[in-house]
């Protein structure tokens, strides 16, 4: 068995330089010992790894192994720390009957390492009774595993006994002066070379000397090893130096390498008392202060000049090496350590069988270099180690080898290289040649490579800007993690890793890869949906959740105000109340500034409890296929919020796509929209806005006010396609349209329904006419709110009605230019002696207009629709929101198309027989396509065919405008004259219209309406219609006399004639002289003025009136005597001279008097 193991095959990758000073003790279990119990004891044994030997400053270090291949033990002569010097056996034995058998096993165990053992111990657990009474030095009995306090003490004793053997061996070898008898130490594979070589009888002196030197050199090296183990560092150094010299001279390269390595080890121990092996070294430091003290003593010396190797004696071995030779001077400098290591390794590499030695030397050198922070050189050693070809390694050994390479690379700061080898190790765990792939181990190792690839599994690290990493290798690693976790049977992990891959590497995935990754993600999530819970791995690593913030990508988040009709408005509180609370200043820029900042976060509109509120996101899909986002909803805080999730499907590579997420706030207060949640490919994601890069948001906090009722209005009218564009900015929720003929009135019934959940308590209605260039007369809209309010409060679901009267009364005058044309006819306005007021006027020009296309467009207004637009505002409130002072505003847009009904193309007046009256002549044009009748007050109907124009005469009383027009003039004394005049004229027109009371009717459509003339009254017409300020009254026999009605009198009786003047003008008038001229009308155009015989005046025929003061009255009396019967007219004339020129002639229009003289009655 020993012969076969010529090569040491199992490398100990954990070795470090200071292991050279340790004694190797194997701890093993025999029989059936549970692993748990064994390692409990093993741990306690291991704690005794260092012992200060009594009465000296030397320290002994122990290295424990629970497994050690015996073939490695064969190399114990080569390097003594490889030699198993102690054996501790742990066994269970419950009955004395079993004891002999157990003891036999212990002996068998001893046999395995028999040749090298210094001492051994057996720990027996469970045995009680007689056997335990017999004191044996190498056996300890314990009743059980809990009751074994003296284990440590036992070990210490054991180590001491080891030390005694070691020390004796050392002294034995060191003092052996007879060079001839020095045996040749061999490594296992050398032994056969020296078989049969008779050194004593060798004839060749040279060969003999050569052989002797070799023996000396090897022995020196061996003594050096023993010295090192015995804690005599300086002696060891000296022995090594001498050994190097000896062996170099005989070209014994393998042993020269070992001597050099021993020198290095001793120097390292001297330089780095903390150790190079990491953890074990640290423990050593804690264990005793001795080595560090020694280090302090020696360290300065390390920098000193090396001892001249030539000064060393090569003949014989001087036991007292420490006396003269400078202690520190033998120690190698840090640089030299590396050089010697290199040299040693180069010697080892000459022997194929020494591969393990070479490999371990490399590892040791790397650890030293790591301490020295010389990464480059260390990497060269490691590179060399990689290429050392041992025998065919088992898979497990390969894993171990790669892992250790990885650790070493990590040690020298080559994190990437380390990660590379760790990954290779991980892959080795699941190599196809392994029957039971270790996916767990693979996964664990893969996780350890993450830092080397600068990859953290926290998606937050990828939110900052663009991805900065080696995407190709990172993606590969993530794929492997996914696969490993799947094979481990942990789909939740696979989903998490795959989500992470998709989220962070999206920019680097090709289209095909995107498809593949999402496909497999969907497959996994079918079994195990992705959650937002962090996954904690058994080894403590936590995988944070991966929200899909890139699927879809959100660019803009905007909280939307409620639609205008539902937007709550605050009843204005007392002015400045809020401001004064904050600051004594009415305005301060500082406050304005801070408010501006506030606005960044808080939005200046409100949401209403119980109403659906919206948030608009602009999203896009970066995937090359359609992306289905399910269960997309809002994440909010502050207010109880019922989110109503939406599902959407985004087309491939879509542009920005608006998505509206909705929800209903259930309570009031400040609500903050923190983010949104989605389900994509079966993975739930909570995306917080704070973590989203490049999201534009205009604040995310909004106030929720208490609930308000909701009003819905509907009308019987059709909806209008044409929506109003009001200037003031408020939007119209509903638009209705109605068509009316000019002057027509209609009732609009509006149905008010409370569709909310709160009672509607308050309602206010206002209307606003949108600016129009049309002249509108009368009230366009009028209503009575009281009837509606009597139905209030309106409970949810209840309906109320509200009636609005619409009256469209626009200008009935013709287009101005048309009017101009018509008045060109030269029909004089005044004094046209028409006996018949009705006259048919046929106006071919008007009729020809529609047929002439070029003119038709120009005069389009004549036959065209006119539009009136108005907005009805409903302000309503109720419920808790009303208490808080909020109301809502609902607007109804009203679009009225006014078709022309009739036009008054021309207007003129004719004086009537009475001075108090006159005839108003209107040319009425029917612009509808239907037959139309027009009638004025107390007049008969006038039938007009389509596009027909007829004249219509209306007898009207003259108007006294002064009383009307005075009042506005007084109110606005500063208004300019023109405006004043306009107003006055308007007021007059209104009065005239109301008196005229013109109506039209379309019998075929059963529609009717009014018409007014106010727009077309000009100054001249008005003057005629106006009652003169000088009112003349003629009284015959005290009876007022006017018009056609004749006063009767008897022939022969004097008739009193009184002319009375009432001055209503603001100036005083007069005096006037009047002459009464009687005449008879023969009804044939002949007036007979020659009536001196028939009438005689009593007194003068001329009357005189004095000056009449304003609002004064004056009268003059006369008398007439009719001598014959007959009809007589009296014409009262002014004398030319007394008629004032500045007063208009119409003021002096006296009624003509008709007197019928009858036969005197008997």
């Amino acid at each position: 068995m020993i012969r076969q193991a010529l090569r040491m095959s199992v490398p100990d990758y954990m070795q470090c330089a200071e292991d050279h000073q340790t004694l190797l003790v194997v701890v093993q279990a025999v029989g059936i010992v549970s692993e748990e119990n064994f390692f409990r004891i093993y741990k306690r044994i291991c704690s005794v790894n260092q012992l200060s030997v009594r009465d000296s400053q030397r320290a002994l270090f122990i290295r424990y192994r629970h497994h050690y291949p015996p073939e490695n033990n064969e190399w114990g002569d080569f390097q003594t720390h490889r030699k198993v010097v102690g054996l501790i056996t742990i066994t269970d034995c419950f009955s004395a009957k079993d004891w002999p058998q157990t003891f036999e096993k212990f002996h068998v165990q001893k046999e395995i390492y028999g040749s090298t053992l210094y001492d051994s111990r057996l720990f027996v657990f469970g045995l009680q009774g007689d056997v335990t009474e017999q004191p044996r030095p190498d056996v300890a009995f314990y009743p059980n595993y809990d009751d074994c306090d003296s284990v440590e003490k036992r070990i210490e004793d054991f180590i001491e006994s080891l030390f005694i053997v070691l020390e004796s061996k050392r002294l034995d070898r060191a003092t052996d002066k007879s060079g001839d008898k020095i045996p040749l130490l061999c490594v296992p594979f050398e032994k056969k070379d020296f078989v049969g070589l008779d050194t004593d009888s060798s004839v060749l002196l040279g060969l003999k000397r050569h052989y002797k030197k070799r023996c000396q050199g090897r022995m020196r090296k061996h003594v050096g090893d023993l010295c090192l183990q015995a804690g005599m560092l300086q002696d060891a150094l000296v022995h090594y130096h001498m050994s190097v010299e000896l062996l170099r001279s005989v070209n014994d390269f393998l042993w020269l390498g070992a001597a050099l390595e021993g020198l290095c080890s001793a120097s390292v121990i001297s330089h780095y008392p903390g150790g190079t092996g990491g953890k074990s070294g640290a423990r050593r430091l804690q264990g005793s202060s001795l080595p560090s003290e020694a280090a302090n003593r020696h360290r300065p010396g390390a920098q000193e000049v090396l001892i001249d190797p030539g000064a060393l004696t090569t003949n014989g071995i001087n036991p007292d090496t420490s006396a003269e030779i400078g202690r520190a001077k033998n120690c190698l400098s840090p640089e030299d350590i590396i050089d010697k290591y290199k040299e040693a390794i180069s010697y080892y590499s000459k022997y194929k069988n020494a591969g393990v030695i070479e490999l371990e030397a490399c590892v040791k050198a790397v650890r030293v270099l790591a301490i020295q922070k010389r990464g480059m050189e260390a990497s060269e050693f490691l590179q060399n180690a990689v290429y050392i070809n041992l025998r065919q390694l088992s898979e497990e050994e390969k894993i171990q080898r790669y892992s250790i390479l990885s650790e070493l690379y990590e040690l020298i700061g080559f994190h990437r290289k380390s990660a590379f080898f760790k990954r290779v190790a991980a892959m080795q765990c699941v190599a196809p040649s392994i029957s039971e792939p270790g996916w767990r181990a693979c996964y664990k190792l893969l996780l350890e490579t993450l830092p080397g690839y600068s990859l953290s599994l926290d998606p937050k690290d990828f939110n900052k800007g663009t991805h900065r990493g080696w995407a190709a290798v990172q993606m590969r690693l993530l794929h492997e993690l996914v696969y490993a976790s799947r094979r481990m049977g942990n789909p939740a992990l696979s989903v998490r890793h795959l989500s992470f891959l998709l989220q962070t590497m999206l920019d680097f995935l090709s289209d095909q890869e995107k498809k593949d990754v999402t496909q497999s993600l969907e497959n996994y999530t079918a079994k195990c949906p992705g959650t937002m819970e962090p996954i904690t791995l058994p080894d403590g690593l936590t995988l944070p959740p991966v929200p899909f913030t890139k699927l879809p990508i959100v660019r803009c988040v905007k909280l939307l105000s409620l639609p205008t009709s539902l937007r709550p408005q605050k009843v204005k509180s007392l002015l400045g109340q809020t401001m004064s609370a904050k600051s004594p200043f009415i305005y301060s820029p500082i406050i304005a500034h801070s408010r501006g900042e506030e606005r960044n976060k808080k939005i200046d509109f409100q949401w209403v409890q119980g109403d659906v509120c919206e948030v608009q996101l602009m999203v896009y899909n970066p995937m090359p296929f359609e992306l289905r986002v399910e269960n997309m909803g809002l994440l909010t805080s502050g207010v109880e919020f019922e989110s109503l999730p939406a599902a959407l499907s985004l087309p491939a590579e879509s542009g920005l796509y608006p998505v509206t997420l909705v929800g209903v706030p259930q309570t009031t207060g400040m609500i903050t929209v923190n983010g949104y949640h989605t389900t994509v490919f079966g993975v739930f994601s909570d995306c917080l806005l704070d973590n989203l890069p490049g999201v534009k948001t205009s604040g995310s906090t909004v106030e929720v006010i208490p609930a308000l009722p909701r009003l819905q209005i509907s009308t019987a009218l059709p909806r209008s396609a044409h929506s109003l564009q009001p200037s003031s900015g408020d939007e119209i929720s509903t638009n209705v349209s109605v068509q009316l003929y000019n002057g027509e009135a209609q009732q609009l019934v509006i149905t008010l329904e409370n569709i909310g959940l709160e009672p509607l308590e308050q309602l206010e209605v206002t209307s606003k006419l949108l600016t129009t260039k049309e002249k509108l007369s009368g009230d366009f809209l009028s209503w009575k709110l009281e009837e509606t309010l009597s139905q209030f409060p309106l409970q949810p679901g209840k309906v109320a009605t509200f009636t609005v009267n619409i009256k469209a009364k626009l200008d009935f005058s013709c287009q101005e230019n048309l009017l101009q044309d018509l008045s060109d006819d030269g029909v004089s306005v005044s004094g046209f002696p028409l006996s018949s007021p009705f006259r048919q006027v046929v106006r071919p020009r008007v009729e020809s207009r529609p047929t002439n296309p070029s003119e038709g467009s120009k005069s389009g207004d004549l036959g065209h629709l006119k539009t009136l637009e108005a907005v009805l505002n409903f302000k309503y409130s109720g419920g808790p929101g009303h208490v808080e002072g909020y109301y809502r505003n609902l607007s109804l847009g009203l679009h009225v198309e006014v078709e022309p009904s009739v036009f008054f193309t021309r207007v003129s007046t004719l004086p009537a027989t009475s001075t108090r009256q006159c005839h108003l002549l209107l040319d009425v044009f029917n612009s509808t396509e239907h037959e139309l009748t027009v009638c004025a007050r107390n007049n008969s109907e006038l039938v007009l065919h389509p596009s027909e124009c007829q004249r219509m005469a209306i007898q009207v009383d003259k108007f006294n405008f002064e009383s009307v027009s005075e009042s506005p003039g007084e109110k606005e004394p500063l208004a300019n004259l023109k405006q004043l005049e306009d107003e006055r004229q308007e007021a007059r027109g209104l009065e005239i219209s109301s008196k005229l009371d013109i109506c039209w009717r379309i019998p075929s459509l059963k529609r009717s309406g009014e018409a007014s003339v106010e727009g077309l009254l000009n100054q001249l017409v008005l003057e005629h219609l106006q009652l003169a300020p000088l009112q003349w009254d003629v009284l015959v026999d005290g009876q007022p006399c006017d018009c056609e009605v004749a006063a009767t009198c008897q022939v022969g009786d004097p008739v009193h004639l009184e002319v009375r003047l009432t001055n209503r003008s603001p100036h005083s008038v007069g005096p006037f002289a009047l002459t009464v001229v009687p005449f008879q009308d023969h009804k044939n155009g002949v007036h007979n003025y020659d009536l001196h015989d028939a009438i005689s005046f009593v007194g003068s025929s001329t009357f005189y009136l004095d000056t009449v003061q304003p609002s004064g009255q004056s009268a003059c009396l006369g008398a007439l005597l009719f001598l014959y019967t007959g009809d007589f007219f009296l014409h009262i004339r002014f004398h030319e001279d007394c008629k004032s020129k500045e007063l208009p002639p119409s003021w002096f229009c006296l009624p003509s008097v008709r007197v019928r003289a009858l036969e005197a009655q008997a």
Partner: protein
Amino acid sequence: MAVCIAVIAKENYPLYIRSTPTENELKFHYMVHTSLDVVDEKISAMGKALVDQRELYLGLLYPTEDYKVYGYVTNSKVKFVMVVDSSNTALRDNEIRSMFRKLHNSYTDVMCNPFYNPGDRIQSRAFDNMVTSMMIQVC
């Protein structure tokens, strides 16, 4: 003849990597990625003292069985890594040096492009052509 040429940003992520299409691309990714350890080590070893006179050429980073990996670092810490076939013994240090210099010049041209955003992947056709010429040309 280079088998792989890579340009690596200051933050150690690839700006450009191109390898012979016949080989496994990922292998070169790993090779270049791990070579950054050596580059880092070499840069830190050089220290900050001699920034001006510093030699940009880093020399052989490490040899593998089949390839040799060479490195070059600009003053702005952008790294160029070139993998050459180790069987190609004709390739001397000087040739490698001149190849890196060419690469550096071409990279400078890329950076001069006002439309190139520093830190983005290099997609310049001129740079591509130059790399192609280096990968084909037998020095």
